[in-house]
C-alpha cells in the first residue's frame, strides 16, 4: 500500500517535468510576449523590462533557469502582476478555489449518489424519469447560464444568497450551487448507470434468493460495484473543481485561481501559466491516486493486481 503510494508519487516527477517542459516551449512559441500590449511600450522600456527578467536570453537558458527555480520550489516572478511572485498569487487564490471546489464537490456527491441509487432502484418509474430529464437538462445548461438563472431566481427572487463576493456563507451559496449542480447531474447519471449494471448481475439474484431485505441487497451487495465509476470520476472531478472554475469565479466575482489561469494565458504571463498548469497537473496526479486507492478499497480484484 505505502509502496504503491510512493511508487506513484515518484512516477509523478517525470510527468510534472514533462508538463513543465512542454508548457514552457509551447507558450514561448506563441506570438507576443508578457510586455506586448495594445498600447506599445517605448522600445527602451520594453528592452529594460526584458533585460530585467532575462527574456532576451536564448530559450534554453531561460528554460534552465526556470527548472533551477522549480527545484527550489520557486515558481518565479509574475510578469502580469509586478512585484508578486507566482507562489504568492497561488497562495492567495488557491484556498478560495479549494473551498469553492470542495463544497461543490461534496454537494454533487451528496445529491448525485443517493438520487442515482434511487433512480436505478426505480428504473423506468416516474422518479427515475424525473431524475433523467432533470439531469440531462443540468448537463446541457452551461454554468454561465445557470449562474445568472440562480442569481435571478434565488438571490433576486427569493432573497436567498448573495450575487457576488466571498465573505459570508450567503456569498458561497450560489457559486457552490452553480458549480455543484452540473456535477451532481454527472454523478447522478454515473451512479444510476453503475447501479443498473450491478443490479442486473446474477449475484444480486443470489442475494435476493437468500431472502435479504431490499435495503441489504441495495446497499450491501449493489452499492460497491455501482459506485466504482463514480469514484473513478470523482477524483479528477475534484481537481478540476479545485483548480478554479473560471466562469463561476468570474460571474460571482470570487478571488480564486480560475481568473489567473485565463488571464495569464492572455497576458503571456509565462511563469503564472507554468505555475498554474503544474499545480493542475500535480492535483490531477494526487486525485487520481486517491481515486485508485478508493477503487481498490471497493474492489478486491483490483486490490490484488495493484499491490
Amino acid at each position: 500500500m505505502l509502496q504503491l503510494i510512493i511508487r506513484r508519487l515518484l512516477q509523478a516527477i517525470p510527468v510534472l517535468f514533462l508538463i513543465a517542459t512542454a508548457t514552457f516551449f509551447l507558450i514561448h512559441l506563441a506570438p507576443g510576449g508578457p510586455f506586448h500590449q495594445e498600447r506599445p511600450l517605448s522600445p527602451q522600456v520594453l528592452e529594460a523590462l526584458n533585460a530585467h527578467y532575462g527574456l532576451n536570453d536564448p530559450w534554453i537558458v531561460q528554460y534552465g533557469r526556470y527548472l533551477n527555480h522549480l527545484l527550489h520550489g520557486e515558481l518565479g516572478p509574475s510578469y502580469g502582476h509586478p512585484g508578486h511572485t507566482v507562489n504568492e498569487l497561488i497562495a492567495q487564490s488557491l484556498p478560495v478555489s479549494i473551498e469553492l471546489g470542495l463544497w461543490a464537490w461534496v454537494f454533487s456527491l451528496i445529491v448525485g449518489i443517493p438520487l442515482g441509487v434511487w433512480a436505478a432502484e426505480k428504473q423506468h418509474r416516474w422518479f427515475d424519469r424525473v431524475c433523467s430529464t432533470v439531469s440531462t437538462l443540468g448537463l446541457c445548461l452551461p454554468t454561465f447560464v445557470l449562474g445568472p438563472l440562480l442569481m435571478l431566481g434565488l438571490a433576486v427572487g427569493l432573497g436567498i444568497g448573495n450575487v457576488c463576493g466571498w465573505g459570508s456563507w450567503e456569498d458561497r451559496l450560489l457559486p457552490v450551487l452553480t458549480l455543484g449542480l452540473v456535477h451532481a447531474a454527472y454523478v447522478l447519471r454515473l451512479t444510476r448507470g453503475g447501479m443498473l449494471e450491478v443490479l442486473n448481475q446474477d449475484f444480486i439474484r443470489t442475494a435476493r434468493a437468500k431472502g435479504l431485505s431490499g435495503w441489504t441487497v441495495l446497499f450491501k451487495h449493489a452499492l460497491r460495484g455501482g459506485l466504482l465509476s463514480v469514484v473513478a470520476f470523482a477524483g479528477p472531478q475534484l481537481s478540476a473543481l479545485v483548480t478554479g472554475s473560471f466562469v463561476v469565479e468570474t460571474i460571482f466575482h470570487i478571488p480564486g485561481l480560475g481568473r489567473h489561469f485565463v488571464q495569464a494565458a492572455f497576458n503571456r504571463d509565462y511563469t503564472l501559466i507554468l505555475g498554474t498548469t503544474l499545480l493542475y497537473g500535480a492535483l490531477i496526479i494526487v486525485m487520481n491516486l486517491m481515486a485508485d486507492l478508493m477503487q481498490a478499497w471497493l474492489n478486491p480484484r483490483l486490490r490484488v493486481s495493484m499491490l
Partner: protein
Amino acid sequence: MTHWILKVKLKLMPLLDVQHLSVSFVHNGQRKHVVQDLSFVLEPGETLGLVGESGSGKSVSCLALLGLLPQPPAKVEGGRAFFEGIDLLQVSEKRLGKIRGQSMGIVFQDPSSSLNPYLTIGSQLAEGLIAHTNMGRRAARLKCIEALEAVGIADAGVRLNEYPHVFSGGMRQRVMIAMALLLNPQLLIADEPTTALDVTVQAQILSLLKTRQAALGTAMILVTHDLGVAARMCDRLILLRQGKVEEAGTAEAIFYAPQSLYAKELLAAVPTLPAIV
C-alpha cells in the same frame, strides 16, 4: 423416527404443489408465452428433474416459483404453487423473501457470476443465517465453517475471509451448494448446477449434491438438459419443450420406455448408458 413423521406429513400434504403455472414475457412489444400450464407435485425428500432443450422454459419456471422473475418484462399469467400450503404466487413479497431464505435453497447455473465479487465468501454465507435465525456472528461463522467442510472445502476457516475470485469454478459451485443448504431448507432448486463446469468437476458436484441432499432429507428440483444426468439423479422427470410439458413420469419409465418422440430424440443424444452414482 423422523422418517416416520415425514411419511405421515407426506400423506397429508405434498411439499410443493404446482398447478397450471403459466408465464409470459413481453419482448419487443410482443407477448411470448414461455411456460404454459405446468403442473407437478413434489414430495419431501424427492428429486424432480426438469429436462428440456435450451430455451424450453426450465429456468423461468424455477424463477417464477422463487418470485425472482424480473416483472416486467415477465408476467405470471396464472396458476398456483403451494409450498407447504402457502401459494408462492400470491403471497406478499416480504413473506416470500422469508420463505425463500429459510426454506428454499437455490444453486444457479454459473458459479462465477452468482457470488458477489466485492464481498468475502464468509460474509455472503453468513448473511442468510444472520437474517433468518437468531444466530450471532460467531455462531454463524462456526456454522459456515462446518458447511464449507461438508462440501469438501479444506481450510474453511481461512477461506471464509477470501473473495470469490480466488476460488476455482468448482469450488465456487461448492460454496453455492453450501450456501443453499445452510439453513436446512426443505427444497433445493438446482438450475443446471454443472453446465458451466469442467466434465470431471461435473461428476463431483452432482454426487456432492446427491450426498448432501440425502444427508439432509431435502427435496430437489434439478434442472438439466442432459437426460442421462436426470435419469440417474431423479425420481421423476418432466420433459419441457417450448414451455409445455411434453412427457412426465418416473425416471425409469422415461429413460427405458419413452413415449414421446421428443423424449426419444433427447435420449438419442445421450451417448452412453448412465453409471449409477
